[in-house]
């Protein structure tokens, strides 16, 4: 049984197959095309400063999209990441007034862990659909945050300098946020590809019954997963508040839908079992560049949104066409 085809494969087919085996390459090509278009429309915009800004804004999105990637691998979704990120950001900014930053951060991550735990138990043990579960906890979290907010109206808010440094600072033109992001990204990629836990995420999402017969305890995997997702979202919140420097009760909510979109554009299936984090990172970059592109274009807001939708659709369709080897 040979692995070679019968006749020599034409170059086009070979190129397609090459891309299909490395789905990252076409995705990166699409990203580059967008950047080039941007440069053509606004000559000179693609400079060091722009690059740094893009990366700074893509990072929080990419981390949240990482949460989505991991939960989507199991066939789930985590809609509470926006609320969790906002909560930890807001709580940290208000607690740091009276506490040491380290303590404030720890306090801020407590609700993240709690929400993750509740999500995980709801999904893993009680088998609530993840969409409903995380939507529910997100509502609950928002309510709690508002109640909390009332107790700290007068205490003011502060952003610890080192978070601002991390969020907005540059070192030799390179965003400091990468110091946080690179380890997180490497960790996620390694977890997905090289650890037992990662394997189980794929397995559980692909065929839960089969995973069970192999001795996998679903609830353990899912609970751990949602806690991890929530903690990552909490960390994102801390980074994001360092970047935006304005604690608000809806700080990270606008990132939720894009985080799902980034994961899907990056090739992760919402039905589980398929996908990876590297694609998601590119997906987040694509979305960020696209946002810039549309901000820069002077046209009515309605037309901007139409264009945004069409480009997202086109990019995803093109990507699927390229990597599909049928």
């Amino acid at each position, binding site marked *: 049984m040979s692995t070679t085809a019968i006749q020599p494969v034409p170059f086009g087919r070979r190129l397609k197959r090459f891309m299909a085996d490395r789905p990252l390459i076409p995705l990166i090509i699409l990203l580059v095309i967008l950047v080039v278009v941007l440069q053509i429309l*606004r000559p000179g915009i693609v400079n060091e400063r722009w690059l740094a*800004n893009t990366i700074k804004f893509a990072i929080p999105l990419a981390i949240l999209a990482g949460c989505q990637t991991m939960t989507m691998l199991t066939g789930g979704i985590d809609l509470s990441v926006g609320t969790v990120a906002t909560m930890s950001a807001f709580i940290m900014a208000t607690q740091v007034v009276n506490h040491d930053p380290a303590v404030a951060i720890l306090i801020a991550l407590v609700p993240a862990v709690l929400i993750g735990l509740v999500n995980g138990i709801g999904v893993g043990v009680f088998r609530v659909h993840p969409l409903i579960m995380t939507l529910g906890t997100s509502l609950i979290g*928002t309510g709690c945050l508002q109640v909390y907010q009332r107790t700290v109206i007068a205490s*003011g808010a502060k952003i610890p300098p080192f978070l601002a440094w991390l969020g907005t600072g540059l070192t030799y033109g390179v965003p400091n946020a990468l110091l946080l992001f690179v380890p997180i990204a490497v960790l996620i990629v390694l977890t997905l590809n090289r650890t037992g836990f990662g394997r189980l995420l794929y397995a559980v999402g692909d065929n839960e019954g089969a995973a069970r017969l192999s001795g996998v305890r679903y609830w353990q995997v899912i609970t751990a997963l949602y806690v991890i997702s929530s903690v990552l979202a909490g960390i994102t919140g801390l980074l994001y508040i360092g970047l*935006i420097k304005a*604690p*608000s*009760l*809806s700080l990270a909510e606008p*990132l939720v839908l894009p985080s799902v979109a980034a994961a899907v554009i990056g090739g992760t299936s919402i039905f589980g079992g398929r996908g990876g984090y590297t694609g998601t990172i590119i997906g987040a970059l694509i979305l960020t560049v696209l946002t810039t592109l549309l901000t820069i274009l002077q046209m009515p807001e309605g037309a901007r949104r139409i264009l945004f939708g069409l480009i997202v659709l086109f990019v995803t369709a093109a990507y699927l066409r390229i990597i599909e080897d049928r």
Partner: protein
Amino acid sequence: SAEAKYTIGVSNTVQGNGWREEMICAIKAQALASGEVTKLNIAHRNTDAAGQLEDIRNLISAKVNAIVVNPADPAGIKSALEEATKAGIVVVAVDQAVTEPSAYIISNNQEQYAYLGAKWLFQQIGGKGDVVYMRGAAGASADSDRDKGFKKALAEFPDVKVVHEVFTGWQQDQGKQQILDFIATGAPFNGIWTSGIDNVIVDALVESQTPLVPVVGADNAGFVGQLNSVEGLVGAAVTNPGSIGGAGVTLALQILNGKKPAEQTVLVEPQLWENVTAEGKAKLKSAADPSLSPEWPVSISIPEWTTYTKEQIIACKGPGE
């Protein structure tokens, strides 16, 4: 004061925004301070005009004596307001006008808000130059009212050009990303007008070490603080008091007690505090309140309309809590 006897219903359709939270707290504080309110029924969530119709009708079902409403849309909730008036309920719209003629209105003048700030900005840059126009949420009626005011001012300064117009959606993060993107294009600009997403804009200018240009924003605590402290920043805060909610309660109580105002509509005119003149600086100094949540407007009270203390609004407690 008089004995507590009224139940007041409140309907608001934006949640999680500092201005609206202040409005709710002002309503609570004023209800408590008046001593005439036994209970507040507050429907406070993110929804649209149809959802507000639902909330108002629920308040009618709850048989409140008066409804204070921040309308999602002036015309969209007409039918429910009409039903409320028919049911003998006093209706007071705050922040924005409504088209229902039986309703009383105590409103911030949104058109004037934009006009005042824009005019100051255009004068500040010498009547000519390029400005960045950072609007609120596309499709929101407050945004289109402000757009009218802005355009009115623009018409008076033919040499001023809008080089960049974007919708922040009243979201801090989006505003910041948008201005940074714009700065990165290298296009020159002489001033920035914002629809209340202001302190992140100043932040972005400082961070990216772009020469500071005049910035107009709202009287949010964060921005007012920046106007006082950021070296070289020229700017103005236009008041847009969230405490208008408290004024709404006062007006409702007056009507319930038989003291109808002469006019159906009361407009609270905005003020402009700039940090160029000594007088303006003084105003800003006295208004600044670093202890306040940065998203809260610093104008936490409206003279003659609100009677609560600062402690009361910050405590954010209504009657019976």
